[in-house]
């Protein structure tokens, strides 16, 4: 067991730190959460800078440990998160890199890394949430095209996306996991209607998407026809591997800020509150160690993350909610003021036990895949 980084890894860290110190002061201010075109431009601009500095492909081509260092250092330096680049960099990109043809990789990967194109994720449907494989959006073959009809929901960044990674049903007669295909759908194709949805935090992060006879070239299918479920699962495990590294670093910073705030407003004198913050410190220290454990495991397994991702996601999503609830306790009645720090995060943290697989589904995964418990049906 070793927590020391190799000289190469330390060198990477030092070089990155130095570059961040120079690059970050040149960044334009972060646009308001309501300004979607502004956010798109900002997030893509940041990705472009990373690309030009040689860090463009760190999300999928680097070793798991380098990725960990990259996410840790960028967060510590206060760099922007991937933002609108999330699906392209952490989801569709890795999928295309792993499962796409040479032509597909050449077409779609460079614009993602250069910060030119935004992707959104067309997975969930009104009747296919946790039961994702129940999706019904139909794709019928017509010559060199699929003709796609149906509707998607919770599609993050749909308003500003150029491409959509779309799961469609290509064989309605096959068992539900076997009749699905993975398509790259251009968002400017005729027949797509995007209707933004407002979250409980008041922002329009995601949207409904209605598809009416949208033509998508067969050449845009990644993986074999009807093999889309397997293609998708490959990347979901990547998503659960290191996707939250930066957030854990950020949560640990929030905890220190909370302690300082509590000391300032007198709440620190309450031993119950102090102990609660002490416990949260233990919680996030442990989550950081669990991240390092999972990353090392992925490194040993040639980059493929193990099942530890589900364990991490379950624990982290709950801890994040606890953290912002503790923030509210530190603030007292001021926690009702959304302009106070952490209070918008408190609202958005409510999505964590739902998005990317609810905690209940994650517990099924842990119970069945790790502990070998039988399926309910």
């Amino acid at each position, binding site marked *: 067991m*070793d927590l020391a980084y190799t000289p190469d890894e330390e060198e990477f860290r030092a070089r990155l730190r130095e570059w961040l110190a120079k690059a970050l002061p040149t960044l334009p201010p972060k646009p308001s959460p309501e300004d979607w075109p502004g956010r798109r431009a900002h997030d893509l601009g940041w990705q472009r800078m990373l690309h030009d500095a040689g860090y463009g492909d760190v999300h999928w081509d680097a070793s798991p440990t380098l990725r960990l260092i990259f996410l840790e250092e960028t967060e510590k330096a206060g760099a922007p998160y991937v933002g609108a680049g999330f699906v392209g960099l952490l989801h569709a990109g890795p999928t295309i890199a792993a499962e796409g043809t040479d032509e597909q990789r050449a077409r779609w990967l460079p614009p993602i890394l250069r910060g030119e194109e935004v992707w959104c994720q067309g997975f969930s449907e009104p009747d296919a949430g946790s039961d994702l494989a129940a999706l019904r959006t139909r794709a019928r073959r017509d010559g060199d095209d699929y003709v796609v009809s149906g509707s998607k929901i919770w599609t993050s960044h749909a308003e500003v996306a150029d491409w959509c990674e779309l799961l469609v049903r290509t064989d309605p007669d096959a068992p539900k996991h076997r009749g699905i295909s993975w398509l790259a759908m251009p968002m400017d194709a005729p027949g797509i209607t995007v209707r933004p949805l407002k979250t409980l935090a008041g922002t329009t992060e995601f949207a409904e998407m209605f598809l009416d006879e949208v033509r998508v070239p067969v050449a845009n299918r990644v993986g074999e026809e009807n093999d889309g479920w397997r293609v998708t699962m490959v990347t979901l495990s990547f998503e659960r591997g290191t996707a939250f590294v930066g957030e854990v670093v950020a949560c640990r910073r929030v905890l220190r800020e909370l302690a300082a705030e509590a000391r300032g407003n007198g709440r620190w004198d309450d031993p119950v509150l102090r102990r609660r913050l002490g416990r949260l410190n233990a919680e996030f220290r442990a989550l950081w160690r669990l991240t390092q*454990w999972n990353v090392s495991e992925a490194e040993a397994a040639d980059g493929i993350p193990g099942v530890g991702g589900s364990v991490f996601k379950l624990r982290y999503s709950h801890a994040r909610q606890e953290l912002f609830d503790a923030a509210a306790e530190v603030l007292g009645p001021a926690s009702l003021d959304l302009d106070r720090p952490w209070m918008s995060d408190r609202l958005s943290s409510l999505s964590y036990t739902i998005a990317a697989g609810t905690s209940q589904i994650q517990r099924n995964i842990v119970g069945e895949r790790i502990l070998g418990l039988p399926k309910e049906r």
Partner: protein
Amino acid sequence: MRFQLTEDQRALRSGVRELLARRFGPEQLRAAVEAPGRLQKGLWRELGEAGFFALRLPESQGGVGLGLPEAVLAFEEAGRALLPGPLVATHLAAAEVPGAATGETVVTDVGGCGLVEWLSAADVVRGDDGGAVPLRSVDPLTPLHRVPGTPSSPWAAEAPGADPAAVLLTAAEQLGSATRACELAAQHARTREQFGRPIGAFQAVKHLCAEMLVRTETARAAVYAAAVTADPADIDTARLLADDAAVRGARDCLQVHGGMGFTWEFEVHLHLKRAWVRTHRTSDATESEERLAAELLAGSG
């Protein structure tokens, strides 16, 4: 960074597991429960010969010359097997008390909460045990004495801090216990049938088991990291997570076993009771919480 067990560490762990399975299996466990207060000196010496107590002594002093990570793996196995005796105290005395390293001398100590484990069976007591009175120990496998006059409030700022190694090795035992409870629960949930199917197919049961695993694996990362860094805040973290995984794990395991879980015969109550004893062995959890809170203000986090 390679935060995974090495080949040697895996071998050490399975070696200790095999030794304990051979010398302290289910029958010996039952026998020990029926003869409370009696420490098996033969087993103790055998542990000594296997290097359990001398694990971290340098080879020049007749030790095995290994470090805290290896000791943590050995104590995890001890916790898993419910191995009785003042193991941590004797291990920590290996360099100073003659015979401790070889298992010839059984050493106990006065814990931070004023409790002494295995006082009557010990050859040497570290700390002032004057006026110690026996109490009716909740754990049939851990006789306890209480030393009067020890801090009424063990978490008071002026109370001397517990030995961090003792805290960590205790956390390692808790981790082993939590691991075992999770295995027992999953095993039962896979095989016990009610309403025509294994009870583990029901989400209410499945989710209890999943949470046990999540608590155990998060604690494992914390305990192993603390073994590598020996950093005080890492050790406090390990302790809080491991106590929680062990105590709640044993309770959930008991629940999954239904009526059988409430019997004297089934081992889960021994895990729960020992886990409770360990939570008060070195210091109160409050101390760890307060230190971790203070660390947030120190800003070194």
